[in-house]
């Protein structure tokens, strides 16, 4: 059984700021070994945005936590390579990781209300993030920097707002403050984990635009982790679709959204209702539920939910499909079906439902 993704297929851009090769993250538990991430390879250049799409349990958040080295080494087994600006952080000492976190790599979390400390003023929390990487900066300098950042992310009256607590902010303002905190040290890589899921659509639009703006200004690489294909289609240059800890399809946003090749990606697209097209047509949902990461199905993990499993004899149930080129350059898919079969099925079954229309 092959378990790893062949690096040849999912080519890693040697110029990229972040390069992840065959990353595996496992948690030994009393119930067994949880294979949260089971061999992903991807890369992001500065100024580019990678969207990682998946449902809960797909391993997308675990991947992001490992890029920050936030997993407890005593309780996690990590293999593979995570290269940030040329330094491999897998196995790196905690002290070195601390110098990276918040400086080279920063993170924006989903729920800014719980991600900000309720007892400290917003300005102080941002200043703290600055001061930890600029030990020689005075308290006043750090505070000034915090106020500047609040201003930069579009918070009115930043001086006054810096002196308020997170609960005095609205949801959108809180997420802006969170972004200010993440960007205070000009990080080269920003990981945004469902940054707009807790927000209303009009505010989501504001935040996505702000992120794009800031990316243009700071030339940062962004990883946008989300379950929302809509968000991905707005901001991403490249997309990685994950299922049960493994990559099932990668490619440019155009390739993934307009010419998807994997039945799971099809499922996601056909099951999301759209603002256009025929509203009276039923959605085409993916049957069943995501699998347990302790007890993955043999062969292709998606086979119990795949409408086309078994098209190639027994391979779906016995052999783990590897990411292989899917026609166009940069487009890779992990599926046993032939390119021609996939083309035909997509046109026949999928293209008319949900947002795939």
């Amino acid at each position, binding site marked *: 059984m092959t378990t790893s993704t062949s690096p040849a297929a999912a080519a890693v851009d040697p110029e990229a700021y972040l390069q992840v090769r065959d990353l595996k993250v496992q948690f030994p538990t009393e119930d067994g070994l949880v294979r949260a991430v089971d061999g992903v390879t991807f890369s992001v250049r500065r100024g580019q945005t990678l969207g990682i799409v998946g*449902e*809960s349990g797909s391993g997308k958040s675990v991947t992001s936590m490992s890029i920050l080295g936030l997993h407890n080494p005593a309780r996690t087994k990590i293999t593979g390579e995570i290269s940030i600006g040329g330094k491999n952080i897998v196995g790196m000492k905690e002290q070195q990781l601390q110098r990276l976190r918040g400086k080279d790599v920063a993170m924006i979390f989903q729920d800014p209300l719980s991600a900000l400390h309720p007892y400290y003023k917003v300005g102080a929390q941002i200043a703290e993030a600055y001061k930890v990487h600029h030990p020689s900066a005075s308290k006043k300098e750090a505070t000034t920097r915090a106020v500047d950042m609040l201003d930069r992310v579009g918070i009115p009256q930043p001086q006054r707002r810096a002196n308020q607590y997170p609960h005095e902010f*609205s*949801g*959108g*303002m809180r997420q802006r403050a969170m972004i200010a905190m993440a960007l205070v040290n000009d990080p080269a890589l920003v990981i945004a984990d469902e940054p707009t899921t807790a927000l*209303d*659509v*009009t*505010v*989501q*639009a*504001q935040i*996505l*635009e702000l992120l*794009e703006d800031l990316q243009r200004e700071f030339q940062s690489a962004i990883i946008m982790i989300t*379950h*929302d*294909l*809509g*968000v991905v*289609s*707005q*901001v991403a240059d490249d997309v990685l679709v994950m299922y049960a800890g493994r990559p099932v399809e990668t490619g440019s*946003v*155009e390739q993934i*959204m307009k010419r998807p090749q994997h039945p799971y990606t099809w*499922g*996601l*697209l*056909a*099951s*999301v*209702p*759209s*603002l*256009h097209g025929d*509203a009276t047509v*039923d*959605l*085409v*949902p*993916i*049957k069943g*539920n*995501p699998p347990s990461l302790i007890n993955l199905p043999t062969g292709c993990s998606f086979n119990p939910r795949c409408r086309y499993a078994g098209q190639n004899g027994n391979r779906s149930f016995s052999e783990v499909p590897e990411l292989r080129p899917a026609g166009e350059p940069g487009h890779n898919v992990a599926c046993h079906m032939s390119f021609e079969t996939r083309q035909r099925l997509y046109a026949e079954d999928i293209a008319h439902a*949900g*947002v795939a*229309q």
Partner: protein
Amino acid sequence: MTDLAGTAAGTATTTTPAREPLLKVEGLTKHFPVRSGLWGKGSVVRAVENVNFEVHPGETLGLVGESGCGKTTTGRMLVRLLEPTAGKITFDGEDITHTKGARLRKLRQDIQIIFQDPYASLNPRHTVGRIVAMPLQVNGITPPGGVKRRVQELLETVGLNPEHYNRYPHEFSGGQRQRIGIARALALKPKLIVADEPVSALDVSIQAQVVNLLRQLQRDLGLSFVFIAHDLAVVRHFCERIAVMYLGRMVEVGTRQQIYENPAHPYTRALLSAVPDVTKLGGHGRIKLEGDVPSPIDPPSGCVFHTRCWKAQEKCSAEAPVLLPNPNGSISACHFPETGEVV
């Protein structure tokens, strides 16, 4: 004004036969008192302000808007979980605004609610069978063939295995739990179901399963729905008629086609344009709303949307617009309604 809105609402429902509405809401208002300041100067949160709409038998009405727009409060008042501050709710020809006691229990058979969080709304110590049977037992109803048989039928209706009768909620996934909640809501053969964000806590692939199930139930059982959601695409997929709310007020009501293709109220347009659209890559040509929704304690004067509206003029901050019919057939509360299709 109520009259006008009423007739206008009539025009907006041309797709449904002109029968008596199943549910009629007139001037519905809810204020929550809050205290603030040193000596507790009492003020009120104007959560819902003079809302009017109708739901006809077999019709699905969507209530959409951003958080704090009053859609959930409205839903809770419909099922009488909250007492309205003012206004009138008529169900099946009967004024139910202040119904109490036995009559209210009877009413609860006809109007059911499905909640957002399938985890929190099921008692973890009860078996699925008991949870679904509960509404029957509480109301002392013995269906033909017995309670157990009816419960198993219901489980089958919502796509669960009837043999799972004796299992507990924790043994089910999120989507299955929401199905249990739906089975329970169906137990008493209600005429109207108020669904409050029924799919927003679910994973995308599971959401579609539940939306399809609700659509099928609606078709097969001829149920009426008040479907409360913030996800405009889900609402478009499920509802024939949509009411858009902003800051406790109804700003536009219309058919699916009117609202999604030809909305008249600037807020409706902004809301639609903010939804990230997979069919259009990159986020260009969006209508951008600045700032946040104002506080419902101290709403803006005149049209409550004027502080964020790009079309706002002097009149908008001075005079509150009333719901009026538009050329497109929808009714909206705007002094300067939009015309033309959305791109």
